[in-house]
């Protein structure tokens, strides 16, 4: 399959597909970070995670329309407001869902799967009723359009660079929240032993709610970023949820580095293979490799070594 191309062409193809993979990687990381917090830390299988992401995307869409109509002078920076709003909207919905649904199911992990799947159907229909079944897209400000020519055949889109920088910043922030802040320490304590965390003076219910809201909020930011590379529809979240779970499990639950490494591996493999094979063939090959590796290493790529 490589025979039809010259070496320079192949080099450029790999570079550009590699870059497309990096953008996919960024969205995967943002999605998976939220899920790694909720699934990896709390053990809750949140099937509605994709819908939280799409909520962020719709908030961004609304913001873009609002700024275009009423505040055209600030349109160039609407995206930052949209991200903050997406985080707040998804986080608030997350806290509400945790309070009304999830907290009753901590001792029944498989039931969370059913409950959140039902929630995802409800949310999808809600989006369809409110925003319509047609996909919507946002208008990007001018400074995010266009691309940077690297050589005469390799071009790198600016919005892709922006999404990557954004992902990097969010990943660092999540690391600090989980491993350097009081809230993160309390979260990890609750995760490891809920009863004992209460007995050293941690309000476990509050920590659960904040953690779930944080994971959902990050999904909202992922949705914001998602609007730059794809169009938003009621069911767009469904396309990503399986991949995201795969990433979290492959990377090793509760390991942030593992999540990032496995996002990278999976997105690059898919993006590069999609160019040469069909999309579904690329997916089959990726899945087979991941399943094979997980059979040899059930704990995922990265896991902590301690006595238990």
């Amino acid at each position: 399959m490589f025979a039809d191309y010259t070496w320079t062409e192949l080099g450029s193809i790999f570079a550009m597909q590699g870059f497309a993979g990096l953008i996919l990687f960024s969205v995967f990381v943002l999605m998976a970070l939220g899920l790694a917090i909720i699934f990896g830390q709390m053990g809750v299988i949140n099937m509605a995670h994709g819908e939280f992401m799409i909520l962020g995307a719709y908030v961004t869409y609304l913001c873009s329309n609002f700024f275009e109509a009423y505040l055209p002078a600030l349109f160039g920076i609407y995206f930052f407001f949209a991200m903050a709003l997406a985080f707040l909207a998804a986080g608030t919905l997350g806290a509400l869902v945790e309070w009304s649904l999830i907290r009753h199911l901590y001792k029944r992990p498989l039931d969370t799967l059913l409950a959140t799947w039902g929630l995802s159907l409800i949310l999808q229909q809600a989006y369809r009723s409110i925003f319509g079944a047609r996909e919507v897209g946002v208008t990007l400000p001018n400074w995010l359009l266009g691309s940077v020519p690297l050589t005469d055949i390799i071009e790198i889109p600016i919005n892709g660079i922006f999404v990557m920088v954004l992902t990097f910043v969010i990943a660092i922030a999540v690391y600090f929240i989980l491993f350097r802040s009081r809230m993160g320490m309390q979260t990890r304590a609750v995760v490891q032993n809920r009863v004992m965390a209460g007995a050293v003076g941690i309000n476990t219910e509050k920590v659960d709610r904040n953690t779930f809201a944080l994971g959902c909020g990050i999904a909202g930011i992922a949705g914001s970023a998602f609007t730059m590379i794809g169009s938003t529809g009621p069911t767009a979240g469904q396309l990503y949820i399986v991949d995201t779970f795969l990433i979290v499990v492959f990377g090793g639950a509760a390991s942030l580095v593992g999540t990032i490494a496995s996002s990278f591996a999976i997105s690059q493999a898919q993006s590069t293979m999609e160019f040469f094979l069909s999309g579904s063939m690329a997916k089959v090959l990726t899945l087979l490799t991941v399943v094979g590796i997980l059979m040899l290493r059930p704990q995922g790529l990265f896991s902590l070594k301690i006595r238990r």
Partner: protein
Amino acid sequence: MLNVAHYHVAYGQSEVLHGLDFTVAPGEIIAIMGRNGMGKTTLMKSLMGIVPTKDGAAAVDGVDVTTMKSYERVANGIAYVPQGRLIFPTMTVQENIETGLSLSGRRKVPGDIYELFPVLLDMKSRRGGNLSGGQQQQLAIARALATNPKVLLLDEPTEGIQPSIIREMARVLKRIRDERELSIVVSEQVLSFALDVADRVLVLENGRLVHDEPRESVDEEKVAAFLSV
């Protein structure tokens, strides 16, 4: 400091503790002795709010804590070192102690805790799960002390720990009591440790307190008879 009155605890329909009454004075160490299955751990757990109380009341320093959640009891001055230690295995030693600071709002581990347990200072960056049993026990006590308690509950602290460290622990518990005027409740099966550390020895048998005597007058053989199977 700790008042327990008419205290009933049940798992569903099966009642385990049938009305306990005892008080612990400030700065007093009491040992609650008893064989397996007599209700020692249930008493500890219910005092900590992990198992609900069916009837009766427990009060710390005059404040009724019977219906409080665990973290609210901690705020009212109860601290708990559970059976099997239950430290947080993937967190470092320092982080483990810091979890105890959650309520007080302090960020730094107070120096006197490391002074009591110098070995924890040497190992503060290690993961709790990689410590030995005796070190984990010290860590669990340090974590409980970080909450700045008035009453410290220890559930079978000598379980699975070598004799030299048991003697060391008795010394540390008495030192903690002297420095902080703490009331300490130890549940125990090892008579020598209980006699070494306690001011008063209580015996729990089938969910009732059947014996309550100051250390000085304890008849060792009589208490030992309660413990033999």
